[in-house]
C-alpha cells in the first residue's frame, strides 16, 4: 500500500476543499474520501487505488435517515448499510431496498459500509483487481484481459469493446428501481442527479464510472414517496446462498389493480455495466395483465440488447428467468 496522509473533515466545506485539490475523482484519484473503507481499503491493499491523501468523512452530519414532508425518505451519505436495511420505514415502504442490502456482503461488512460508499462500489472483475493484468478501467489504453479471459461473472448489458466489467452493487439496483436521487455538494455548489444519470457506461472511457468531479461530496440520497399500493421485491441469483455477488438479480416495484399492472419499475443487477434500469421491460408490463406471458415478454425485451461474452451466455436466460420469477412473486396476492 502506498503511504498516504490521513486527515479528518469536521465539516462538509473542509472535505470539499480538500477533495477539490484532486486531479480526478475517478480511477487514479490522488485524494479520496473514506467512510466505511470496505471497498477502498481493499483496493488500496491491491494497489489498484493509490491515493496520497485520505479524508475521513465519518464525522460529517450525514448519518441520519429522515422522512421528508412529501412522504419520501432522505438517507445520509454515511448511514451504514445495516441501519438502512433495518430501518422501519425502509422495511415498510421500500422493501426492495432492505432486501437488496441484506442480500449483499456479510453482517460485518454491512456494519461498516455506507450508502455513498455502496453507490461508488467498484467492479469485482478480477482483471481490474490484479495490477499485473491489462485493464482499461484501471489503466486506460492497456486493453481488456477479460474479453478474452475468464468472463463468466461479467456484464452482458451496457458493455463496450474496452470494458465488460459488472457493477457489483445490490443496493444500486434497488435504488434504480426506486428512482433514487443522489445529492452532491461540490466546489461549484449543490446538485441533484437521478441515479440513472449518476453511473456512466464504459464506452471509450471505462476509467470514468460516475459523474463525480474533484471535490464532489455525496451528502445524501432521496427516495420519492412510495407509489400508493405498490409492492416491491429483490431477487438475487448467485453461486452460493450467501455472501456472494449476483450472477443475475432483479429489483421490481409493481402496482397492480384488479390483476392489471398500472405502474412498473424494473432494474437488473449482476448483468449490467451499471445498475440496469429497464424501461423496455416497464413498457411491456404497464397496463398489461399480471401473467406469465406478459412477464416473459418484459424479460425478453429487457435482455434484447444483451451481448454475452465467451463464458457468460447463460446470464441472458438466467436474468430473464430471474425477472420473470421476481414479477411472479411480487404480483402474487398475499
Amino acid at each position: 500500500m502506498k503511504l498516504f496522509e490521513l486527515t479528518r473533515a469536521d465539516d462538509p466545506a473542509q472535505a470539499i476543499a480538500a477533495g477539490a485539490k484532486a486531479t480526478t475523482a475517478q480511477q487514479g484519484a490522488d485524494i479520496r474520501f473514506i467512510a466505511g473503507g470496505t471497498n477502498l481499503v481493499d483496493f488500496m491493499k491491491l494497489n489498484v487505488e493509490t491515493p496520497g491523501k485520505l479524508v475521513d468523512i465519518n464525522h460529517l452530519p450525514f448519518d441520519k435517515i429522515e422522512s421528508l414532508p412529501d412522504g419520501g425518505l432522505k438517507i445520509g451519505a454515511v448511514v451504514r448499510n445495516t441501519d438502512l436495511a433495518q430501518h422501519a420505514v425502509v422495511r415498510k415502504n421500500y422493501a426492495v431496498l432492505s432486501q437488496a442490502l441484506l442480500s449483499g456482503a456479510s453482517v460485518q461488512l454491512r456494519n461498516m459500509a455506507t450508502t455513498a460508499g455502496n453507490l461508488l462500489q467498484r467492479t469485482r472483475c478480477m482483471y481490474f483487481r490484479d495490477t499485473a493484468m491489462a485493464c482499461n478501467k484501471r489503466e486506460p489504453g492497456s486493453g481488456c484481459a477479460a474479453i478474452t479471459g475468464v468472463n463468466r461473472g461479467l456484464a452482458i448489458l451496457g458493455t463496450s469493446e474496452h470494458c465488460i466489467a459488472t457493477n457489483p452493487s445490490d443496493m444500486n439496483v434497488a435504488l434504480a428501481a426506486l428512482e433514487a436521487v443522489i445529492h452532491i455538494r461540490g466546489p461549484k455548489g449543490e446538485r441533484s442527479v437521478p441515479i440513472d444519470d449518476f453511473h456512466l457506461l464504459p464506452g471509450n472511457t471505462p476509467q470514468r464510472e460516475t459523474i463525480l468531479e474533484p471535490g464532489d461530496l455525496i451528502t445524501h440520497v432521496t427516495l420519492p414517496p412510495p407509489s400508493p399500493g405498490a409492492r416491491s421485491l429483490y431477487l438475487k441469483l448467485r453461486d452460493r446462498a450467501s455472501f456472494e455477488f449476483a450472477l443475475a438479480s432483479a429489483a421490481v416495484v409493481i402496482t397492480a389493480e384488479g390483476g392489471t399492472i398500472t405502474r412498473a419499475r424494473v432494474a437488473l443487477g449482476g448483468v449490467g455495466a451499471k445498475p440496469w434500469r429497464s424501461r423496455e421491460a416497464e413498457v411491456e408490463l404497464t397496463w398489461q395483465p399480471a401473467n406469465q406471458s406478459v412477464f416473459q415478454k418484459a424479460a425478453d425485451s429487457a435482455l434484447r440488447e444483451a451481448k454475452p461474452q465467451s463464458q457468460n451466455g447463460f446470464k441472458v436466460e438466467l436474468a430473464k428467468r430471474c425477472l420473470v420469477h421476481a414479477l411472479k412473486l411480487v404480483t402474487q396476492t398475499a
Partner: protein
Amino acid sequence: MADQSETPKKSQSGSQFGKSTRRTFISRLGMAGLLTSAGQVFAQRPLAEPTPVSETKDAVPAVEGAIPVTLRVNGQQYELRIDPRTTLLDCLREHLHLTGSKKGCDHGQCGACTVHINGRRMNSCLCLAAMYQGDEITTIEGLGQPENLHPMQEAFVAHDAYQCGYCTCGQIMSAVALLTEPCGPEDAEVKEFMSGNICRCGAYQNIVAAIQSVRQNTSRQQAG
C-alpha cells in the same frame, strides 16, 4: 501488504508490550506457521515468560510519517505511534500483541479478524486503526479469559465447534454479536448471519449448534 513488509513503529503503550512473549519466542524458533495452525482456541497470556533472546532485536525502526493514535481496546487505553496504513487488525496483533484476532484473507472475505467496535462486529482487516480513535474496541481477549469464559466460548468448547481453531475467535466474535442482532430462530437464519465467517475445516454444523444452545439458554433464562 505494505504493513507487513515495512515494520511499523513500536508501541509506546507500556513496557509489557516490549517484552518477549510466547508468540515472539515461537516465531524466533521459526515454527509460527506450524504452531498457529495446530490450533489455539483462545488467546492466552504466556504462563511463563520465555527467556528473551534480545530486546534490541525487537526494536522497530521509526517509520516516516507515523502518527500518534489513541485506541481504547477491551477497556484499556493505548497511546501509539503508527504508520497511517496500519489496519486495526495489524495494530491489535503487532502493536498491542492481542493475537486472538486472526489474519486470514486480509480482504474482508473470511471473518477471522472480526472484532466489535462500539458493540458492532466489523472486519478489523479493513479498518484503518487511526480512524477508530475514541471508539470502544472489543477483541476476543476482552470477551473472556480461560478461567472465566464467555458463555459463547463455553458453548464452542462444549459443542466441539472447531477443528484447527484458526477461524474460531472470529466465529465467536460474530456469534456474540449475533445475540443482539435481528436474527430469526431457525438454523438457516443463523447460517445466513454467520456467512461472513469462513471455516475451512467445515465445523459449521457444530458452530450453529453452539450458537443455538446459547440462544436457547438465554431465552430460557429470560422466560424463567
